[in-house]
């Protein structure tokens, strides 16, 4: 009896699956998407690049002149960089649609604006 009840219920309700590009859900809180750097807060210690397990972060220069190169195609979104930053200069955003046809377009560069 219960099984028929459930079957009718399922027939009448909407499917759980969303038609993705057209229908979207906001990522949950604490979701680790693309990391972004706030260069006003960055001190250029290079810890993020040292700690990155997949070598997705490159730091060029030292201290205030430091430039950050972030290769999104190598990133595995573990969030270690944001965790290690002593000054909270890195934030994990909820951005996750990062695929691209060219590798050059998957490189993000951050530089301090003077």
């Amino acid at each position, binding site marked *: 009896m219960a099984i028929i009840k459930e079957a009718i219920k399922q027939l009448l309700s909407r499917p759980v699956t969303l038609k993705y590009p057209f229908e979207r859900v906001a990522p949950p809180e604490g979701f680790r998407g693309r990391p972004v750097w706030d260069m006003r*807060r960055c*001190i*250029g*210690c*290079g*810890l993020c690049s*040292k700690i990155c397990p997949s070598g997705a972060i490159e730091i060029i220069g*030292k*201290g205030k002149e*430091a430039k950050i190169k972030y290769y999104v195609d190598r990133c595995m979104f573990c969030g270690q960089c944001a965790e*290690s*930053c*002593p*000054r*909270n200069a890195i934030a994990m955003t909820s951005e996750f649609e990062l695929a691209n046809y060219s590798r050059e377009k998957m490189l993000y560069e951050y530089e301090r604006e003077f």
Partner: protein
Amino acid sequence: MKASRDLIAYNDLKRLIIDPGFCNLCGACEAACPIHALRVEKNKLEYVHDCSEYVEFCPICYDVCPFSEALLLETLSFVTDAPKRRESIGYYRKIVLAQAVDSKLRELSHSGGVVTALLIHAIKKGFVDSAIVSESEEEVPIKVKPAISLVPDDLLSAVDYKYFPSSVAKAFGKAVHEYGKAKIAFVGTPCHVRAIRKLEAWEHKIVESLKIVIGLICLWSFSFPKLTEFLKRKYNVKAGEIQRIDLNKEYKILTKNGKVVSVSLPEVEAHILDICKMCEDFTSELADISVGGAHPLKDWSIVIIRTEIGERLFESAVKANVIRVKNIEERAEVFTHFVEMGLIKKNAAIQEIERRRKKGRAIPPAFARLLELVPSEISLLSSLTAEQVMTRKVMTVKPQTTVEELLTIMTKHHHMGYPVVNEKGKLIGIVTFEDIAKVPTEKRKKTLIKEIAHKKLVTAYPEDSAMEIYEKMNKHKIGRILIVDKKDPQKILGIITKTDIIHTLRWPMKTK
């Protein structure tokens, strides 16, 4: 002072702070180090691993050290919104006498039990979820170790503060890293408070958990091994026997079996930590609330409320009937004693720094920085005239006022120096707290101000630049200069104190 810094801050820290023996083991560097290369262990700061292997550039540990010159002015910005500022008290909203309503807390603590009462109240109200305080170690009750208190009951074991160094800033880092605490109250001596404020000015991520800073009023800290050695040798008091210590004009030790030993100040002075001898901060000038004993009143504490957040917590504790307050004006002798102790510390510090300088010995960069101005500050001060900096409303006293009456005025307004003006409005002298302190207590009722006031005045004109005035103050070793009319040198136009100058230096940063 060094113009450029090493890429690895630890090299600077070692050269300028650790090697000359200035480290007070506050542990701020340990709390701040992103790769945990520093650790305070067994009365020593250990360099666990070479941080240059991990980072190519890192300014942190030197920046947050309370004795380095970095970020000193920035730390002031946490208190500068307070409406009042006075020499030897700092920026503040109000000063009151307070005590915990709970008599058990008062008994356990050195004085009014205000800090513990405040913390218990804050935890109960959910204002904070933990507090970092100093706690005595079980076997040696006097040795202070930092503790992280989680529930109100924990705090009761940590009420008695003693005058030994402990690494509370380190405990703060621990609370965040290991306990995951999100709302922390921090209690510490002036140097600890400076360390935690530096972390805050540096915008280190662990201070996001910092909710309130309670500063203790601190005269000096003692070197633990040296002092216990001395007490054992001379007074046959073992470290384990000591139950509590009172430090005022005398050093009083109460042992567990009820024996009281008093040691005179010069005797214990030899065991003060080197760094404390050079420290001028008596009242934890950067804290949200500063609390200290209100000698000679036994059961009360002096409370200086500096910031809005401190005021809110204090008011709510008063409202909840956890803390009882009393106007400080009722007890002028408490305030007098308080300021006197502050001056003792300050003058001792100035003398010690000068002595070291003459001998060519190192001075902590922080204190050197407070004495010298950097080029940008000099140019700022040179561009301002005295008229722009001075306080126009000057409180004056009449020559016939007695010393006691003046003390009452001082307790009310907390200014440390007053120009003496006769009936015709002519300036005849200046009287400062130092002059009053020289008058013995029994003579204070009869002595008139005109007998003790300085007649030879150092004055300046409104057209003078602030830099000239600052130099004049240093030359004559005074804390305040009267600004007088050029045509009539007996007419006061305003007054400039050293705190006015420091405030002026702060001001361009604040408007940014």
